[in-house]
Structure formats: structure tokens, C-alpha cells
């Protein structure tokens, strides 16, 4: 059963086509890996699917309902969440209050006092409980990424887009993050992972979609996609100069 479906997504910035007609699905329980070199359109696609940007053409449906024209905050309430490549916490708030915001406004719609209490649950899940009442300016990159996760999870989403969660982390932190991603998946959340660290995408994903220059060039089981000659060329393409 396809939880998320997108058809013919086109996005143009000025004269440049960031996405030239991308289609795909996400089945419930899947971990879809989204790969491609820089500029292939991965982030743009995530932005569009999560409601951050509008496509010039194309439709998106979530759990059978067309959400193409739904505003981002409604999509979040419905169960689509995302994290950011570079963490964007609410800088004037504590970790606890950061997590309280989606608890107040997301699916759970808690009252502010109840939300600040419940926030501990998700901080605990991501191991940040002891930092609950500190300002986020005191957290390091790894912790901020976990805070992003806690915020996204707070609304009990059905789909979570992880945009380069591992960027900037050292090997130990990467290993921990992989475990965290599995635990999130164990909660029953379907994931779309955008990642540059190919071996991680390989290991985690149930299926991979490869993009290049705004188009899907390969899709399928991780092992197959990674060996696909188009995908290899896309990544190493600059080595082969055409006449």
C-alpha cells in the first residue's frame, strides 16, 4: 500500500529545471534512500514533498489524499515531518520548548503545559533528556541533529524525511545515528533518507532512488542501483569529459 505518492514533479528556478518530472512512491514501512550528486534535486524534492516549496507541475498524495496544495503546517499535522541538513533549532528556546512546539501544533495538539511535560519523552528517546532546560546554543552539532529528530517525532509522523542527518558527524557519531534511525523505523515510521554516505544508505534502505540533474536515473534494490552504470557515471561523471 503506497503511503506517499508523487507524480511528474517539475520545479524550475528562473530558467533552470531543478526537477524535470520526478515520480515515485513510498510504501508503508519502507526506508527509501534518495541519492545523487550535488545539485541533482534531492533537497528540492524533499522541500516539495514536505510542503516547503511548491512544484510547478505534478501531484502529491499522502495516504490516498491529494496534498499538493496543502500548506506545510497542515501536512505536518497530517503526519509528514522532516529534518534539516543544517539543524535549525529555535535559538531562543530551551531544548524542551523546542520539542514542545510541535507537540502543541502538530498531530497531538497538546496544551502548552502538557506539551512541555510530554517533551521529555522525546528528548529521552533521543538521549537529550539531561539537556532539557538548557538553551540550545549550548548543544553541539550531533545533539542538535538529535533535537531535530525529537521535534520531528513529536507529532508522531507516518513519514519522516531525513535530509543528510549524518553530514558533519564523526565516525562514532555516525554509528550512533544509524542506530537511532533504526529505532525510529522500529516505531513504525516510514523514512525517506537523503544521504551522501553511500554505504549508510545502502545498509539502511529497503529501496533506493537515484537522481541526477532533476531526473530519476535508477530505482530499485540498493545493490542493483549502486551498480547501475548511469548512477556510477553520475557520481564520477566529471572524470569522463565528452568531446
Amino acid at each position, binding site marked *: 500500500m503506497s503511503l506517499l505518492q508523487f507524480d511528474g514533479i517539475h520545479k524550475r528556478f528562473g530558467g533552470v529545471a531543478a526537477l524535470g518530472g520526478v515520480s515515485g512512491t513510498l510504501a508503508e514501512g519502507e526506508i527509501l534512500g534518495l541519492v545523487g550528486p550535488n545539485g541533482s534535486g534531492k533537497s528540492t524534492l524533499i522541500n516539495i514533498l*514536505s*510542503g*516547503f516549496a511548491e512544484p510547478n507541475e505534478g501531484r502529491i498524495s499522502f495516504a490516498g489524499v491529494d496534498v499538493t496544495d496543502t*500548506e*506545510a*503546517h497542515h501536512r*505536518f*499535522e497530517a503526519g509528514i*515531518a*522532516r529534518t*534539516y541538513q543544517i539543524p*535549525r533549532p*529555535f*535559538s*531562543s*528556546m530551551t531544548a524542551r520548548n523546542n520539542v*514542545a*512546539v*510541535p507537540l*502543541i*501544533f*502538530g*498531530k497531538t495538539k497538546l*496544551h*502548552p503545559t502538557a506539551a512541555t511535560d510530554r517533551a521529555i*519523552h522525546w528528548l*529521552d*528517546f*533521543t*538521549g*537529550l*533528556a*539531561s*539537556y532539557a532546560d538548557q538553551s540550545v546554543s*549550548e*548543544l*553541539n*552539532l*550531533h*545533539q542538535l541533529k*538529535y533535537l531535530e529528530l525529537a*521535534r520531528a517525532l513529536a*507529532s508522531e509522523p507516518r513519514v519522516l524525511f531525513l535530509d543528510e542527518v549524518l553530514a558533519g558527524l564523526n565516525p562514532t557519531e555516525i554509528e*550512533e545515528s544509524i*542506530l*537511532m534511525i533504526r*529505532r525510529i523505523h522500529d*516505531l513504525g515510521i516510514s523514512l525517506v533518507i537523503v544521504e551522501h554516505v553511500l554505504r549508510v544508505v545502502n545498509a539502511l534502505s529497503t529501496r533506493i532512488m537515484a537522481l541526477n540533474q532533476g531526473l530519476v536515473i535508477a530505482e530499485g534494490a540498493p545493490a542493483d542501483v549502486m551498480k547501475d552504470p548511469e548512477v556510477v557515471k553520475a557520481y564520477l561523471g566529471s572524470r569522463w569529459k565528452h568531446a
Partner: protein
Amino acid sequence: MTSPTAVRLAGFTVVALALWFLPTLQGPLDFPIFYLLFGYTLLFWFAQASSWNMFTGYSGYFSFGQGAFFGVGVYTTGVLAAKRGWPLIAAIPVAGILAAVLGLSLGFVVFRLRRLQGEIFALVTLAVAFVVAAIARVSSTIDGGSGIALNDVRLPDFLGTFPSMMFRLGLIIAVLTVFAAATIQRSRLGWGLFSINDDEAVAESLGVPTFRHKMMAFGMSAFFAGLSGAVHAIQISYITIEDVFSIRIPLFVIVMSVLGGMRHWMGPIVGATIIHTLTDRLNRAGDLDLFGGSLTVSLDHLNDIIIGLLLIVMVLAVKDGLWPRLVKRKWAAAGAFLFGLLVARIWAPEMSPIGQFVAGELGAVVVLLPPVAVIDRWRNRRESSKTPDEPTGRPTVGATP
């Protein structure tokens, strides 16, 4: 179980009632009537600064349009009450509604545009304020350039004599406005606004209905500004475009809120108190002769120089305003206040109570501004240039969900 809202409501009601009877105590306690009018003006600034801050301070969208909403309020009284004979009491709510309609219409256009950055919003509101003033000037139904005299307006005589009436009207509006600001701060709307302030796109993606929240806050801000303006028209008594739409109101509400602190409803109160008492004293102090008399600075102008300077210093050195510091250093501040008060009493016993209050304020402010504010900034900047990834601890992975 007493909810915070109930406590707040009770607290405000008590304060409001107590102050309501202040005018009736004027006779028995025999304090000069001047204090009622001074009190009215202070309440006026509470309302203006709080109404401005409930949108700009909380959301971070800097509005230079306070003048427009205030002006709409003033001229509603002018047109309905003075020109058309409406009783003042009827004109006041209409003024609030008209101002709110202006705010909501502006918001509807402006908040829909996603790429609208902060500075552009500020410019748009500034421009709208000028346009409203220009429209009022050219339209003879409104002003037409000749101004409006408000001597014959039907005033509510059940509120007592003129000073009592003004005081009480100002009180009701100030209480409503400040209560609204305090309630918003703690409510879902407040949470939404503060998250918009930090990062609007992220807020939206975490479920905050950013457009709706901005509209609500902007509309309310305009409403209260309009209400307050409608009453203030009587105080001004002869309203002209130049006077009503001057840069003064927007400037003062900005400085008051920046000074007091923009993230808390007490900020504008603290800021308005300090600035109003200070400017009041300066206005009465006369002239200052500099350079042996060749340059006379009327302390009226010193007013503006101080206000400008305060704005600069506060923006650069004390970004969060005085209220957060007051909360942290309340005993030091209280002590300094009393010290200043005593010094004034002893040194200049003929000084009026307000003057002594100002002396106390200055004492408290000195304590609240860290003495080496600029050096603190340097120190902070040097520290923050260290690598941001210094680990302060690891998240404990594997904690049971």
C-alpha cells in the same frame, strides 16, 4: 485548581479596581489633579507600547506602522464624535475595529508573500503609515488639512470630572491591552509567534499556522492601538495631520519596548515608565546653556537626543532589554532604586515626587546595565570564535523509549 489564566485575570482585576478608585481618592488624599493627567498619559503609553509589542516583540516582524493605527483611532473620534456628534463612548470601539480592519487588510496582502523579509515588511508598514496620513490630509471628510477641534465632543459624564474620566478611560484600555499581551504570551498564539520569531519556515513545518497567527496578532495590535488613539484624541483636543501622524508615536513605542524588553509583556510597561517619567521631567526643566550661552539646547530637544541615544545603546549593548535583567537582579535594582530616591530627597528636597522617582529609576537602570556593557560584548564575541563543535557531552544512545 487555579489555572494561570485565572490567577492572571484575578490579578489584573484587582489592580484595575484599585486604580479605578484612585480619582475618587484625589479629594480625600488631596494630591494635585496633575497626577491624574500624568497617570492618564502613562496609561496611554502602556497601551500604545503594549499593543505594538504584542505583534512586533513576539513575532519579530518589525512594524513601523503604529502611527497608522493610532491615527485611525484619533481621526475616528475626530470624524464621528466631533464632526458627526457621536458620543465618545460609541466612537471608541468603532475606532478599534477600523484600525483592526486596516491591520488585517494590510496583513492579508503582506503575510501571504512568502519572500517578504523583515526589512521589507518594516518599509511597507512605514509607507502605509504615510499613505494613511496623506489620505487623511487630502480627504475633506477626514481632515482636509485644517485639523479638527474636539471641544464639543459628548463625553461620558458618568465617569467623573474630566481628569477622572480620562484617567478611567485610559485605565480600561491599558488594562485590556496589557492583559491581552500577557495572555497571548502564554497562549498557543504566543508559542506560535515566538517560534515564528526564531525561524518562521521551521515553525510552519512543525505545524504552526503562521499566516493565521500573524493575522491574529497584527489585528489585535492594531485594534488596541486604535482604541487608545480614540481616547487620546480628547487629550490632544485639536488634532492635526502633522501632529497625529508624526514620527513621535512610532519612535516612542519602539524605544520603550526595546528598552524594557520585547519578549515579555512587562517590557513595554517598564520601558514606558522610564521614558515617560524621564521625558516629563526634561520637558519641565527648561533650557540648558552650552558654550557660554552661544548654544541653547531646550531640554525638549535633549529629550529627542536622549531617546535616540537610548535606542542606539539598547540595540547595540542590551539587546534583550531591561526586564530579563530586572528579573535576575531584582534586589540589586530595588536597592539601587531606593538609594537613588533617598539621594534625591536629601540633595534636592524641593524636587517633585516624579523627579525623585526618576532619580530612583536612574539608580536602578545603572545597576541593570552592566557597567562595562561594551566590553562584555567583546568578551562574548572572542569566546564565540572558538570552534562551535566543542563537545559538551554525548547524547546517551540506547535509552529506552
